[in-house]
């Protein structure tokens, strides 16, 4: 059977599609097998005006905070190490926000600008001790948006 011009054209198109597939499939499979970061997962839910987590005590080492803001307001997530009680953090002069620069507070890390339905992961290497997780937007901490975490 003679190869007409149209047949040749179709054959070229098929070859190109097969080549694209041959390149795309291994890449996709490789991405799916990327190693997940290790560490103790702690699922954190933020909402107006509460912080909830699924574990109050975690082992020392890498802790992976998987944060979800259920809103409806935008929040931030701060992690500090302190021996103070969670509701007794020192306030700034405005009386509405936590003074993170206070000497007995060790501000470790934060995730800010979490809009409603935003998800974020924060990975920290935590030594044994007492930690507080809170939102430091005006009035949020005083509204009750904090939680304690103990690392052993």
């Amino acid at each position, binding site marked *: 059977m003679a190869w007409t011009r149209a047949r040749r054209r179709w054959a070229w198109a098929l070859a190109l599609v097969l080549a694209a597939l041959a390149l795309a499939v291994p890449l996709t499979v490789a991405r799916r097998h990327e190693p997940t970061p290790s560490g103790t997962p702690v699922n954190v839910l933020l909402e*107006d*005006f509460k912080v909830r987590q699924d574990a109050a005590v975690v082992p020392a080492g890498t802790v992976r905070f998987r944060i979800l803001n259920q*809103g*409806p*307001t*935008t929040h931030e997530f701060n992690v500090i190490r302190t021996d103070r009680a969670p509701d007794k953090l020192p306030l700034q002069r405005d*009386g*509405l926000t936590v003074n993170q620069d206070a000497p007995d507070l060790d501000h470790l890390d934060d995730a800010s600008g979490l*809009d*409603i*339905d935003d998800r974020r992961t924060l990975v920290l290497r935590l030594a044994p001790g007492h930690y507080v997780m809170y939102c430091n*937007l*005006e*009035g*949020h901490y*005083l*509204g009750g948006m904090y939680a304690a975490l103990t690392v052993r």
Partner: protein
Amino acid sequence: MRRSPSAEVGAASATQRTAAGGRSGIGRLVPRLPILGDLRLGRRLGWVIPVLIVLVTAIVGYNARAIGQQRGSALVVYTAARQRALVERYTKDVLLVVDGFQADPEDSGEAMRQPVDVLLDGGSVRAPQGGGARVKVSPARDWKVRRKLEQDRRLIDELIHTGDRLLKGGRSDPGHGADVTRLRVLSAQLSSVSNDAVQEITQQTEASLSRLVRIEIALGLLSVLAALALGLLLRRAGTEQAAQFRSLVNNSSDLITVLAPDGTIAYQSPSVQRVLGRRAADLVGTALGDLVHPDDQHDVNISLTKLVEAPGATANFGCRLQHEDGSWRHVESICTNLADDPRVNGLVLNIRDVTEQAALRKSIGDLLHNLARRSQGLVDRQLELIDELERSEVDPDRLHELFRMDHLATRMRRNVENLIVLSGVEQRRRWSESVPLRDVVEAAVAEVEEYDRVQVAGIYDLTLAGRAASDVAHLLAELVENATSFSSPTTRVEVSGGPTGNGYVLEIEDHGIGMSDAELAEANRRLAEPLAADVAVSRMMGFHVVGRLAARHGIRVQLRHCWFGGVAALVLLPAVLLGSAGEHPAMAPPVPAGVMAAPEPLLLAKTTESGWQPRAHLPLRRHAAPAPNRGGDTDAAAEAGEPVE
């Protein structure tokens, strides 16, 4: 000749191509753009134009949408800012009242609810520019914004509830401190939520605006591409059309010549090589007059001079142009004055070589003339024979029959003479002496079969130049014949005359059924512009003959409606053909009216009193046929107008 239906000229129903030439599909829907003129755009351009229109419309639409979004966003920001101010005011009012100062927290609490209600449910707020104007705000649609605003509303309720508790308990209440703190915290939270909502709205607006800007940039780029494509296609269409036009001009058998205002040739189409054997470049800068035959130069100059004075006008003329080999080519020219058009600035002549047609016409004319001459000789001999028989005949009945034969032969002779006129050959016989006008009129009337219905009145005692006498008599005979033929046999045809500012006018009026306006216009056109011999001429031969005879001597002939019905033919004899005992026609008194039935001695002889012999062989007894029942008495016949020798 006159009441016959106008010759219908079958107009070929050629399909006209539109300026867009051959467009199909959507191209057909695109209206002709005046800016494009007669440019043939083709099918491709038919697609580009709607695409361009759609793109521009989309850009305008997106612009309007972006402006609307910006305006709405600004209003939301303003409304939210106002709400924050009201929250702070309410908090202060509560604290002031608790401390014993005068304030109205109830009012500020109510005002505090309004902005969030408007943002959630839609409504109107006071305009930022003040002046009592209000601006409508649409309800928030985005679910994130709505949830934040609903939270805002809940916090306001809680704030007001806390405020009420403070106001109710006062400073002495044990929970006073906690409530004050709660009030401040709620106030801060409200501020936070409000800010959050505004930020969300602003971000969304910005994102939407960015999207719109990107779309507009893309649309703009597409528009630029479409405009470029349009330009390229226009240029290509223009180039193709120019090439097509150039090819047409170069290969046309017609010449296109542009004359500069000074009469020199400013442009000459290359087809002149084929027609006149000359190179176009050689002719540019030379005078057109150098090519024109000396006999035609006068007429050409007159035509062009008249045209130069009328910008935009068109004139037709024919002439002979000299070929490179020295021969003369007959041409017809349509000339348009485009001196006002800066792209031309001159007279545009479309010249067609009609040498072959002219030769053919001359050949036909010669043939016609030769045949007519032969017939004329025979008819003349026949008339002479009839004449002799009439003279020797005494029986009134037979004489009457002879008169009828005589009339028919006379009509045949005029038909033959008509053919000679149409052949284009001038009369060989011309009178050198002037002839009384009345003689000419009566000679014309005498040629008509129903001459006894014709009444001649008020003809001035003028003379007519001998060179025109024969033609004028022929011309008048045709008009009188026409008048008698197309009016009732019981009515009269009146021939009268009167002086005008530039000559003398003869009027031939009949009482017939008249002509329609269209017929009259057509007949006048034939009279003013007699054509070459063709089929149409044979249908309306009389008018063509009259027109040709009139044109020979500068006589104007026009038909018009009579107020009493019928048609009047006006024949204006120019002053140059006239003479009189006095120098002015007005000085010559009119001759009293008389009906041709009354015998006129001057017409009963071969030669009139003035010595002028009416056309070639004028019948001798035109005036009155004897009644058949009348006796054969020659005296009685003479009294009745019979020919008398």
